[in-house]
């Protein structure tokens, strides 16, 4: 199976790199929820536009925004 984002070999839904980025993205939602009381969708768009966000995480966030 191919990664939904970059067409590389997937280990789950994504390739190894995007899978790791996805895990981090999910893990950090709790901190954002606690800090700003925001929804998952709001969180994704905040992360996608944040300049400190890593490119792989941005790609996952943008992919999730489009697909959800």
């Amino acid at each position, binding site marked *: 199976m191919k990664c939904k984002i970059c067409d590389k070999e997937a280990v789950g839904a994504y390739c190894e*790199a995007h899978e*790791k*980025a996805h895990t*981090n*993205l999910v*893990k*950090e939602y709790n*901190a*954002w929820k*606690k*800090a*700003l*009381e925001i929804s998952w969708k709001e969180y994704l768009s905040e*992360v996608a536009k*944040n300049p*400190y*966000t*890593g*490119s*792989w*995480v941005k790609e996952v966030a943008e992919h999730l925004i489009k697909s959800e």
Partner: protein
Amino acid sequence: MEKYALIVTEKPEAARRIAQALDKEGKPEKVEEKGVPYFNAFRDRKLVVVPALGHLYTVVHEMGGRNYYPVFSFKWAPRYLAERGAKNIRTWLEVISGLAGGAEEFIDACDYDIEGSLIGYCVLKYACQNKENNAKRMKFSTLMKSELEKAYDELLPRLDFGLIEAGKTRHEVDWLYGINLSRALTLAAKRWSGRYATLSTGRVQGPTLKFLVEREKEILCFVPTPYWTIKAEAEIKDSIYEAEYEKERIERKADADAVVKACEGKTGEIKNVDIKKFRQMPPFPFDVGSLQIEAYRLFGYTPRGTLNIAERLYLEALISYPRTSSQKLPPVIDYKAILTGLSKDSSYRGSALTLLGKGELKPNEGKKADPAHPAVYPTGNLPERPLSDPEKRIFDLVVKRFLAVFGEPAVKESMRVNIEVNGHLFYLHGRQILKAGWMRFYEPYIKTEEVLLPPLKEGETIRLRHVIREDKFTNPPPRYNPSSLLKKMEEEGIGTKATRADIVETLYGRGYIAEQRIFVTSLGFDVTEILGNYCPNVIAVELTRELEEKMEQIQNKSEKRGSVLVEAVDRLKPIMEDFKEMEQAIGEALSNAIKRARMQERIIGECPNCGTGKLLILYSRKTGKRFIGCTSFFKGICKTSFPLPQRGTVKPARRNCRACEWPLLDVRIKGKRPWALCFNPLCPLKEERKREVQNL
């Protein structure tokens, strides 16, 4: 014909210095034979001082040929047999061999370290026909006349074979790893794609690139989290001071807002005033690593650049031998003589005389020692020619660090005032230098920011005029720069003080990394990933570190060259066998990586017109001319295109125009200064420049 002693040095400038120092009248005769300079000097007898040009010999494959691997048989041979650009080495060796014929005694006066000892050994063994066993050794750390004379008068009876064996082994092990792995990578890619591209890795290169890839992955997978800090403007006797909230980081916005609401405009009471005095010891003398790190911090010089400059200063007898890992300055270097020499320069006179006026001079030394050389120090000589700006800076830095290490400790005072406001604590911080000590010798390389607070007492009241919430995010780990990467390599125990800077340069040269704040290119990523998947041992730090330790042991004579080589080959063989088995898969992966990297190199950025495609450097099939086009053209969406200069090289600059924010291109044309091109025809800067030209 009169017989003489042949003195072999590492470089021509060192030969000139040594001949000048040893000649009775300080005026040796310079001779040039087929373009190779050497010097005739007279002391107690005739001396001929001939330079090498760094390494004249190298490790080569015994059988020759390039298109196969693995290769395990090697020999030492002149460099001109192995390197295309080293033709002059043949003449050089002919001249040395000719001079060796008339010599009755041989002296190695190359730098006293692994590389220097190996250079001298190879010249004596191969160019002078096996004179290595009865040659003597000059040992010195500076090219000062007095030290060179002493080294000549007290010649070591034989070469340091511990250093030589360690050097030989290092070159041989590095050759075995480098040639096999790099050849395997290059051939695998070539056999799959039919196209040649130089790929390389090595015993130290692989693990170093892995550090960078790991850091890059952390940055790419980083999710910032929000947090808040609170600052307050505290009003004290008509002046405003900045106070910090007791918690450095607040995790919830609502909590931060609550603090602001509770404290804004309120008056608080000073609960206590903590005053602490502390001493700050002088820095340690420079070893090569700390000099490179400091030069990068202060001037942005790369480690390789700093080392080159330091070596030039050493060859002019301005500083001691820079490739040292010592942080010690033994009294034998004669501190007073150095300070007296430096006091002849008006910019160092004040500091040097102050130190000379002290009773006892005792440097603040670090723990690191080097059996061959002391830490880097100025010789006390002043430049005989105007130094270039970078040379001036490095020289000044070495001098000031030398002065600083003899200084008194600095005495500083810190003050913390705790103010309670409506149940919340705020801190006011003050910093003051009570006694500058060594710091005044090290100016301007040390910055001291003082914050002076007025006298404050417990129970006094202070009003917080404004309380400000600052919105922040956690940051990804910092990127390595050439200096911090060098530090990391040192911490991990891979490479040596002499080779680390070159390894970093090679990574840049291969296109695996780019920029000063290092990012790993897609090629660097892919090569590491492929090696990690198919032959993980190649990029394993442990393997490199273990070999490194063994090679150190050869130097101490507790390990033998033969057994280290056998072990290196034993480890390499299975790696190469595995590689061979998977060559096709590796070749395919590498070819795809090269293709991606080449494509990546041509991507300039997002298309500013359609917003969906990417701008690429393309070549017209009809005319062969290059231009910028949008990838969406192929989907029939966007026809954006821009012309490009047809001469020289054009590369994406990876930064944007300061006026219009469009991506810039780096253009290099032979004979012209490189420039950054903004291809936006409507860029305001272009208009501005037009107007400037018209006004002229």
